[in-house]
């Protein structure tokens, strides 16, 4: 008792002081609270005003052109539309829909801002025969040419991986906000940022369940959490979140908040890439724009909001479907949709496109090239934040074929292998369109969707015999050699600067003696080539590499003649592109044009050509490379190519079989293939036994045209004996081959044939012998 009295008297004595102190504490707390609120308010308003999301640059594939004669049968045409996310309906009225009736397809295109013009949505009719378009009309009028909206192939997103496609409220199907409210936040239209009732209800449910089953967060709170805060879930965070949500509600309209939510929220993961916003999610899951989504698709996206990983429709389709159907049921219950519509939608499959095969797939190697191209002109932030629209040269069909062909062949090669290596065999494919210099496909490794070391650009490897056509071109340009010239394939010894002697060998370890150049190239004879190169002169040869488009001139070393030269696959493509385009260098490019977020053209990468070799010399070498494919190291390709498809190419093998290369072209495509190990250990493969199969299977599976070059002035085509190089005379020739040589080139004649010792009899015997052998 006395103690209490003491306390009481003390209280009485210091009553004023205590009250003042208390008031002070409360005051300080209030001020701190106020300061905090003002601070949060500034964050909220400043960061949210104008809602500047960092907008990754969007990269589009090449647009498909439609015109009479284009190689599209009705099936291929329908496939093309489906690839672009067009959906089949009974009567196409809306953008992105089509109807197929046999060989006739009616469709309504999407409005699209191209780099040079806006193309409005248009209703078109296509009729086809077995494999091409025979008419293209709109409203009964012929349309000479029309481009489809291109596929969005990816974006250049920042290091933290947040990728999105921002949509305006007009691009949002009305069902989406309605569904979001019903499922996530029924009081959205009336609450002030937080819904106390919902929080208490959620807490009660969670306490009863013993775990977190239901969140009481409003859409505004979810937006705050995603937009301003990190992932930590603490009580302090919750308070901060609630406060910011209320502040947001004070400053902004409900409609703005909802649209921000639609663009902000996290909806999936694609490797390093985080899918944010419904705009990108729609592309990612369905391969079409958000505006075109149907009820079941909208419901699925809303279902995914709750747990993009748990309800991942690709990995857990059952789970995702159950939740989608729940969303549909809730929508019907709350009269957002008719009961019947919900029941019908529940019958529908998820309709998610396969990842990596169609729309929504991802081409890191190619995008890397795009990014590097643009980095010369733009800062990294401009690319990842400024919403640029980039028109690239990628052809998705060729890209997909290149990816699958490479993966299949590498699997096959590894299976055939006796000793298994722990490390995977790797490969690269680069495809260009020679006359335009456009890179239309690029695979940077076996796992095409794996982002990392881009071998197509960064793996500088020894190119072996791929150098040979360059040496032969240098030789033709001296005017001292023709494709019919005879060189000696015999031992070569070169004393090097370091005192050592270089003694190259043929792949077969044999000597072939005097051979015509066409055969020396076709069979990739090392000794004949070294002699030729030394005769032409090393400085001339090394300069030729630079002239054709190699960035750095190789050192003037004899070993360069056999390809001791480290070059990336893309650079090889640049080098061979000069051959494929008839002696014109065209800088390879992956980007055609760049538009800013408002659609103003910023930059175009124009087509440029420079003549770098005489058309005659290039023609001769190209004809020799045709013989590589006809009877040389590329002959095995024939089995995979359609008959009549003329192609030219060259194999390459580096020392100890570390690198297997093949580079070659048709009339409309150039492809370069490399196979090897990352650690540079031997593969046991030559260019012919490794890369050639990938090359030929790829070329055989894409629509490409035969190589046909007009014979340049001053050249003539003539027939020689492939084995000896003698003029092909009736009765004497063993294996005739057509080569191009300058008009009036003297050709050696077979002395035996001229003296007639064997003459007719020999020829008849050979014909008879051929009859037996064949």
């Amino acid at each position, binding site marked *: 008792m006395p103690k209490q009295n003491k306390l009481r008297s003390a209280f009485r004595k210091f009553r004023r002081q205590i009250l003042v102190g208390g008031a002070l504490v409360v005051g300080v707390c209030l001020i701190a609270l106020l300061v905090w609120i003002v601070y949060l308010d500034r964050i909220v308003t400043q960061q949210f005003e104008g809602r500047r999301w960092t907008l990754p640059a969007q990269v589009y594939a090449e647009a498909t*052109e439609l*015109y*009479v*004669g284009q190689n599209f049968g009705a099936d291929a045409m329908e496939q093309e539309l489906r690839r672009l996310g067009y959906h089949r309906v009974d009567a196409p009225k809306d953008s992105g829909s089509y109807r197929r009736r046999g060989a006739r397809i009616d469709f309504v295109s999407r409005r699209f801002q191209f780099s*040079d013009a806006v193309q409005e949505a248009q209703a078109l009719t296509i009729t086809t025969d077995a494999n091409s378009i025979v008419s293209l009309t709109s409203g009964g009028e012929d349309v*000479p*040419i029309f*481009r489809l909206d291109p596929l969005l192939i990816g974006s250049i997103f920042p290091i933290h991986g947040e990728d999105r496609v921002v949509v305006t409220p007009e691009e949002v199907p009305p069902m989406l906000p309605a569904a979001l409210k019903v499922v996530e936040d029924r009081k959205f239209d009336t609450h002030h940022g937080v819904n106390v009732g919902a929080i208490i209800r959620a807490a009660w449910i969670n306490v009863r369940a013993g775990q977190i089953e239901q969140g009481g967060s409003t859409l505004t709170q979810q937006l705050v959490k995603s937009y301003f805060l990190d992932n930590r879930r603490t009580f302090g965070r919750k308070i901060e979140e609630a406060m910011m949500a209320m502040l947001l509600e004070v400053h902004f309209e409900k409609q703005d908040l909802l649209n921000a939510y639609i663009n902000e929220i996290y909806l999936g993961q694609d490797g390093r890439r985080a899918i944010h916003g419904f705009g990108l999610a729609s592309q990612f899951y369905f391969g079409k724009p958000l505006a075109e989504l149907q009820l079941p698709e909208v419901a699925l996206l809303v279902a995914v909001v709750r747990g993009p990983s748990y309800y991942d429709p690709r990995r857990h389709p059952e789970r995702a479907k159950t939740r989608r159907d729940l969303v549909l049921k809730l929508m019907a219950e709350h009269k957002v949709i008719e009961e019947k519509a919900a029941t019908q939608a529940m019958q529908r499959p998820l309709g998610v496109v396969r990842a990596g095969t169609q729309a929504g797939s991802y081409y890191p190697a190619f995008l890397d090239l795009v990014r590097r191209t643009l980095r010369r002109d733009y800062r990294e932030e401009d690319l990842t934040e400024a919403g640029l629209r980039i028109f690239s040269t990628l052809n998705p069909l060729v890209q997909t074929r290149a990816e699958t062909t490479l993966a299949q062949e590498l699997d096959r090669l590894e299976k055939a292998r006796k000793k298994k290596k722990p490390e995977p065999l790797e490969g690269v494919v680069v495809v260009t*369109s020679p*006359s*335009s210099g456009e890179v239309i496909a690029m695979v940077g490794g076996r796992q095409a969707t794996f982002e990392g070391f881009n071998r197509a650009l960064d793996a500088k490897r020894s190119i072996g015999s791929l150098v040979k056509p360059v040496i032969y071109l240098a030789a033709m340009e001296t005017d001292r050699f023709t494709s019919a010239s*005879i*060189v*000696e394939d*015999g031992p*070569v*010894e*070169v*004393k*090097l*600067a370091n005192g050592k002697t270089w003694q190259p060998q043929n792949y077969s370890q*044999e*000597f072939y003696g005097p051979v015509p150049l066409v055969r020396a190239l076709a069979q990739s004879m090392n000794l004949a080539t070294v*002699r030729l190169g*030394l*005769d032409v002169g090393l400085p001339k040869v090394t300069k030729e590499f630079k002239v054709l488009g190699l960035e750095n001139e190789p050192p*003037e*070393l*004899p070993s360069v003649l056999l390809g001791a030269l480290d070059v990336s696959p893309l650079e090889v493509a640049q080098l061979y592109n000069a051959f494929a385009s*008839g*002696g*014109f260098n065209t800088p390879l490019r992956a980007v*055609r*044009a760049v538009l800013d977020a408002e659609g103003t*053209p910023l930059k*175009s990468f124009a*087509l*440029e*050509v*420079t*003549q770098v070799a005489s*058309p005659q010399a290039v023609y001769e070498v190209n004809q020799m490379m045709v013989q590589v494919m006809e009877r040389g190291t590329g002959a095995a390709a024939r089995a995979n190519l359609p008959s009549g498809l003329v192609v030219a190419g060259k194999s390459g093998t580096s020392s100890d079989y570390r690198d297997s290369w093949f580079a070659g072209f048709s*009339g*409309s495509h150039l492809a370069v293939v490399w196979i090897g190990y990352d650690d540079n250990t031997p593969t046991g493969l030559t260019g012919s036994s490794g890369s050639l199969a990938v090359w030929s299977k790829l070329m055989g599976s894409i629509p490409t045209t035969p190589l*046909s070059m*007009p014979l*340049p002035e001053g050249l*003539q085509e*003539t027939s020689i004996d492939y084995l000896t190089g003698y*003029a092909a005379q009736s009765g004497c020739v063993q294996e005739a081959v057509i080569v191009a040589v300058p008009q*009036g080139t*003297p*050709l*050696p*004649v*077979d*002395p035996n044939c001229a003296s007639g010792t064997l003459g007719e009899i020999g020829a008849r*015997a050979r014909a008879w*012998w051929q009859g*037996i052998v064949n």
Partner: protein
Amino acid sequence: MKRYVSLLVLALLSACSVPQPYRPTAPAPSVPPQQPGSPPVVETQPAETPPAIEVPQPLPTPVIREPVLSPASRALVGQAQTQLESKNFAVAASSLERALRIEPDNPLLWIELGKVRQAEGNYVQAENMGRKAVSMSTNAPKAQSAAWSLIAESYRARGKNPQAQEAQARADQLR
């Protein structure tokens, strides 16, 4: 008996196909040791060429085939010409590049693209496009003539009059 004869012939023939041991017909190139830093000096001798005769080649008369534009290309060239009139060079070029993707081997399109480059003052590319067109029109004198005219024009614009005259002469000769 017949069988023996054919066997004998076979044996004879197969004897012929046995690879001959290597007999050098030309001495291996002898290369003196190179000075450090300087390119290797090489000395080679060409292979001994057998007696040569001129093989008379009946030259086929070239078939003249002038290129024509496909309807799609024609529409795009029309567009490009309108765009060129309004000095919209980049857009005109991009229309022509579209056409070139459809018909990369049509010299007329390269000539049109060269004209756009010429109009925007990129004379070097104008000439290069002309040369590309020339290389594609060996059997099309009309197209080749137009290409040489473009080349001549690009030279004139750069004040290279002798070259311009020479190119113009080639254009006129083909007409």
